[in-house]
């Protein structure tokens, strides 16, 4: 084959045209524009927040693309093409330095996000996300509107829930320490309330609990458990001061349940994905032992001793 300029140019250009037609134009022309069941249009403010998201490169750390085998945040729903029809540009992402945000809307109340944008380590002590305090309050609010819309109709449902319980928790908090502690305990289902922490307190377990506390809780509840972590100024109702729980018969079961499920409406997140059972019991006993100063670890009823107990 003799390669003349004409052969090269005509050859490669017609190949490119043919391939672009089949590989790009054809799927474009054939695309399914049917909205998925969670789809809704975004409000103007949410679109403005999305622009902040695009311009500041959130996409380099956050995907919006849930796969069939994911476990982390948002994995209750696998992404469908109908979720994306209004996304221009689409922000699927190619790197997960941070979690997928497809369904981030309503996972936390707004105050959690504000504190998190000011400095992610306030709410998530070992986060790698850089702080966005420099965006200023106005842009942080707009950005939060967008994040809270992620998941569209599913996010709206979660936001309804957040708003409802936000009002309830504020009411309880403003009714005073005593009433708040009672309200918090009452939200835990009956069965859980009567369960003591089934495992004995030990120096090793407290050590492990301490480490978990450092990685997950310290930014809100503070190093001495008084609720004065660096996130405190942005969070309302403020992070619980554990010392106020002394003498109120807070069982290991209550603490376990609150950690597992979080307290929707307040900034207190759920930890059921991050921590498995042993870790929840151990960090629970850590706060009970050191901050509440009352631990029911290993009290009756306790059943058969666990095989690993010394």
């Amino acid at each position, binding site marked *: 084959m003799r390669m003349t*300029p004409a052969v090269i140019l005509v050859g490669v250009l017609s190949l490119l045209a043919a391939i672009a037609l089949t590989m*790009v134009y054809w799927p474009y022309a054939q695309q399914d524009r049917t909205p998925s069941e969670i789809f809704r249009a975004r409000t103007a403010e949410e679109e403005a927040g999305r622009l902040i998201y695009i311009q500041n490169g959130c996409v380099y750390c956050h995907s919006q693309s849930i796969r069939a085998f994911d476990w982390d945040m948002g994995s209750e729903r696998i992404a469908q093409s109908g979720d994306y029809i209004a996304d221009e540009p689409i922000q699927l992402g190619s790197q997960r330095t941070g979690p997928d945000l497809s369904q981030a809307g309503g996972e936390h109340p707004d105050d959690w996000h504000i504190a998190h944008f000011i*400095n992610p380590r306030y709410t998530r002590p*070992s986060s790698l996300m850089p702080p966005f305090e420099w965006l200023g309050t106005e842009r942080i609010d707009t950005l939060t509107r967008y994040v809270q819309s992620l998941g569209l109709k599913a996010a709206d449902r979660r936001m309804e829930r957040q708003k409802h319980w936000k009002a309830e928790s504020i009411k309880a908090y403003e009714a005073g320490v005593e009433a708040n502690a009672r309200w918090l305990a009452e939200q835990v289902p009956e069965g859980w309330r009567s369960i003591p922490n089934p495992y004995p307190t030990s120096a090793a377990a407290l050590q492990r609990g301490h480490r978990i506390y450092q990685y997950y809780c310290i930014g809100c509840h503070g190093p001495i458990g008084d609720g004065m972590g660096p996130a405190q100024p942005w969070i309302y109702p403020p992070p619980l001061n554990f010392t106020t729980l002394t003498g109120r018969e807070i069982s290991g079961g209550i603490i376990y349940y609150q950690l597992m499920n979080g307290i929707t409406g307040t900034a207190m997140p759920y930890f059921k994905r991050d921590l498995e059972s042993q870790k929840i019991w151990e960090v629970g006993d850590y706060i009970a032992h050191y901050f509440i100063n009352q631990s029911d670890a290993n009290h009756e009823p306790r059943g058969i001793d666990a095989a690993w107990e010394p």
Partner: protein
Amino acid sequence: MSPAEESTAHGNQTAKAFTLTSAMWFAFATTFGMIAAGYLVAPDFMANVEYIHFGRVRPMHVNAVLFGFVTPGLIAAAFYYIPRLLRTRLYSERLGVFSAVFWNISVAAGMAGVALGYSQGREYAELPWLVDIMIVISFGLVIVNFLMTIRRRTEPILYVSIWYAAAAVVLTACTYLLGNVVWKPDTGALAGIPDAILLWFYGHNVFGLLLSPMALAVAYYVLPIATRSPLYSHTLSLIGFWSLIIVYTHIGTHHLLQVPVPTWLKTISIVDSVAMVIPVMVFLINIWYTVKGKLGDVHADIGAKFIFTGTIYYFFVNIQGSMMALPDVQRITHFNNWVVGHAHMGVLGFAGVTALGGLYFILPRITGRPLHSRFLADFQYWLVLIGITGFSIVLTIVGLIQGQAWYNGETLYRTLPGLQPYFITRLSLGLLIMVGAYTGLYNVARSLYFNRGAAA
């Protein structure tokens, strides 16, 4: 005067200008890379400096690398070998120098745009609309110069390097326009899943229709000369060329295997990703047989040494790439630093190292004097080689840690503390590469402008 001497006498201004461009942006781009890597080690360091915040400096890094360092470096070599191979003079040195200046203005404008927050938020297509147009004009100026030089050739036969260089710039101008959706200036994007398909068609063509062919062209030119051997096979060159154009353009969707795109597209992209072994092995067999038994010569020429190293990285990055396109493998490797490792192996280990080789090969020839310092060039070679090899190892390991942990149900947050040692290692290795880049800039600038070496 022979055409070659005449050309040297005329100063090779264009090749020199693109050489300097490349060396300069290599230094800037690695600086941006260090800042990005720094954020991943200490996110509160430089916390509130808006213009170099992670989400802005990362696209600055990637675009500076692609359009500031690697592409101009490969183009510099092309401006040297095209007239030589065609036994003529460059169509216009003035146009060439102008294109280099305009090129720099475009890349700088792109950096400023992204730094100021005008990113369009599509990976590899971030640059704002106006800059997109400027980049296409830059390519257009280079195309005119290439094609007009081909028109006035006195050598009837076009060598394979010419095929690749001409095809690369022409095709890239087209896919760049298409991929950046320039007909929609406000968003620069389509809506929904088709946007992703178009983006990765274009994104992969940056590696497949720009970096790879331009780098192969340099290897095809330099290695036979450095080893004084004829090219092993013309037939293999032909197969390699046409299969590269056909196969590479089909594989963009392998970036979207876990996304709801049509299954037939995924199937084609997977099959063709595996079929990539054809153009790759055809090229490697051709070039490795050409230099067979002459590794001493390769070693003796610093340019050839870089380029031969680039071919080895080409082998690894492509074998790895074909593997990553298999859905079972991608379940682990997607979304984590394994891909970042692959990206550095490809764009730095293969294309970037080849571009550096091209620069060092042409520098003595365009200035008519020896390199300012062969020692510094060797020093840079080792810094870059250790850096990129370290990157490959560290990022692959950390990618496997992330991928396995996620696949087994660990939350991402839990894996974060474990990443720190690797990110710190990456930052340290990056320092080697960055020092290498500044060393190179010094050496190139001295060789070009303050060269006290005796004229050859």
